[in-house]
């Protein structure tokens, strides 16, 4: 028997229209945003933007940001912020560089060790927030500077004075795990599609788009897994409960501390995944890596429908939020507009999203 049949009709309750039901989905705003931005660029941008290679072009930065944004969204739903994600990308990049170049570790050790290192710092962030009861905003703001500084100092220490650590690509060359974290996936499929003429190819017969950049696959998989966890597992329910009202959650037997610390560890691990992918891709790491990414990740989460007060939001929303971000950053280069409009657009988007989310929240809770 379905739940609908169980409820008897109450004459005081009007049936919900489809529009109202949709309004209650946190990701609605982000999906609407993707549609609007797509329409905007269809009208103004060079048609090259929406070819396969154009799409890969804007999806790659969207994916890198999205991995951070989804983790930031989960943490925000759990009621906390992490402003140290961007610096964590630089720090984890340095740690990874040291493991692979200076110590010559293979990826099978270097990657888990980098992740563990980052997770430890994430856990420390969480522990400080929980122990002191201070807002995570301020605790992780300290982390933002400490980790950025540590990356600078560390890089100079390990390279003998340079703020850039080179040679990562040579160090991971031929490693059996490297294809998981760098380059393109499905190259065979794309080659075949090019050979039968489904996708564009160069005169030599090689496809113009050799494959899907791995970060895009990571991005999609992480979005799906995060959504599944949030919507369909007890842990997801705990995340919402913890962010909605920590005290009520605790009184109902939700392991609030564990949830929060795990979420801080998750954001740190997401930052190191982005660090590993981008460092292998660039072949080197530097102290400016991930600069400003903490804010972009939070904006992504907010565009995706997360409330700043926690307890509400979605991972799929952050997924679309990141795509909007990528489209706008890259898309402007396909138009006649000055690229610097980007930041104005971004700020406007954020403002719109926050106002929109606030209205939605009132709808959901029936506040008047």
């Amino acid at each position: 028997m379905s739940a609908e049949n169980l409820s008897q009709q109450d004459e005081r309750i009007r049936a919900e229209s489809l529009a109202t039901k949709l309004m209650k989905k946190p990701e609605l705003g982000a999906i609407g945003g993707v549609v609007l931005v797509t329409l905007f660029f269809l009208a103004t941008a060079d048609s090259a933007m929406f070819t396969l290679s154009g799409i890969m072009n804007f999806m790659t930065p969207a994916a890198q940001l999205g991995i951070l944004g989804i983790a930031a969204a989960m943490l925000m739903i759990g009621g906390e912020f992490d402003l140290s994600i961007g610096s964590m990308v630089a720090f984890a990049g340095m740690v990874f560089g040291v493991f692979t170049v200076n110590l010559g570790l293979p990826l099978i050790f270097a990657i888990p060790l980098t992740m563990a290192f980052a997770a430890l710092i994430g856990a420390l962030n969480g522990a400080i927030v929980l122990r002191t009861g201070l807002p995570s905003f301020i605790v992780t703001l300290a982390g933002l500077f400490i980790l950025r500084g540590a990356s600078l100092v560390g890089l100079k220490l390990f390279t003998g004075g340079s703020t850039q650590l080179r040679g990562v690509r040579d160090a991971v060359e031929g490693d059996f795990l490297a294809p998981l974290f760098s380059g393109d996936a499905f190259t065979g499929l794309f080659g075949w599609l090019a050979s039968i003429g489904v996708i564009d190819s160069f005169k030599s017969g090689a496809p113009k788009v050799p494959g899907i950049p791995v970060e895009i696959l990571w991005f999609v998989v992480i979005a799906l897994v995060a959504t599944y966890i949030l919507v369909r597992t007890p842990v997801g329910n705990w995340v919402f409960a913890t962010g909605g009202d920590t005290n009520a959650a605790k009184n109902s037997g939700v392991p609030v501390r564990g949830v929060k610390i795990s979420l801080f560890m998750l954001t740190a691990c997401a930052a190191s995944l982005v660090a590993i992918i981008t460092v292998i891709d660039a072949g080197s790491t530097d102290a400016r890596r991930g600069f400003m990414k903490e804010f972009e990740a939070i904006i992504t989460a907010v565009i995706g429908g997360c409330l700043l007060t926690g307890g509400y939001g979605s991972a799929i929303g952050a997924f679309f939020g990141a795509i909007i971000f990528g489209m706008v950053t890259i898309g402007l280069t396909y138009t006649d507009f000055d690229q610097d409009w980007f930041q104005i657009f971004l700020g406007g988007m954020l403002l719109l999203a926050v106002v929109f989310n606030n209205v939605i929240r009132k709808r959901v809770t029936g506040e008047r």
Partner: protein
Amino acid sequence: MTRPIIHMESIKKHFGNVIALNGVTFDVTPGECHCLLGDNGAGKSTFIKTMSGVHKPTAGEIFFEGKPLSFDSPREAMEAGIATVFQDLAMIPLMSVTRNFFMGREPTKGRGLTKRLDIDRANEITMEEMRKMGINLRAPDQAVGTLSGGERQTVAIARAVYFGAKVLILDEPTSALGVRQTSNVLSTIARVREQGVGVVFISHNVRHAMAVGDRFTVLNRGQTLGTAVKGEITSAELQDLMAGGQELAQLEGSLGGTI
């Protein structure tokens, strides 16, 4: 009379040199509603916190189903079947009724990596339990924030009962409610009692207590002033006891017996 589920004998609780409870004796039998009345500062909150495992008594004994017992944490008391619905209700407005209902105790299906929330069953149970309490939800995914205060109270009570409460402690459930919502909550209490749950109803509103109570215990300055059975006592007498006797009697003249 049936054997009490929980019997608290001469409970004393001191906080440093403050004597919050000074020998309180109280019990609840299955299917009865025992009202604990008292004015502000009488020790009601301290007493129910002792009963629900938040505080450990300084002196005195707790018997649970006849056996002496001491709870080290609210969790232990909860597992034994003592559920407390505090005034904040432990409800999250942004979350759906179902998600609130099962918060911290989610039903799952599958195992290992496929272990997941059994959302259909959770929804069904929630609708069913709420219907038993006389509330027809529009949908189980309706946010708790859209419910009225009385309905939220009912969700909290239904949740406690569903998870096997033998004793249900309600901390001033009607204090912030309007007339209609109050009567809804009171009828919910009556329903719960019929299911054989012992209800401890804390209030300082004598009329609400008289409406559902079977027995009444009045606390004043950390002491019990006695327990009365329904029909043996009038609301005016209860009111006097709560206020400690004399002062209110003097006031009553000037207020024309309206309190």
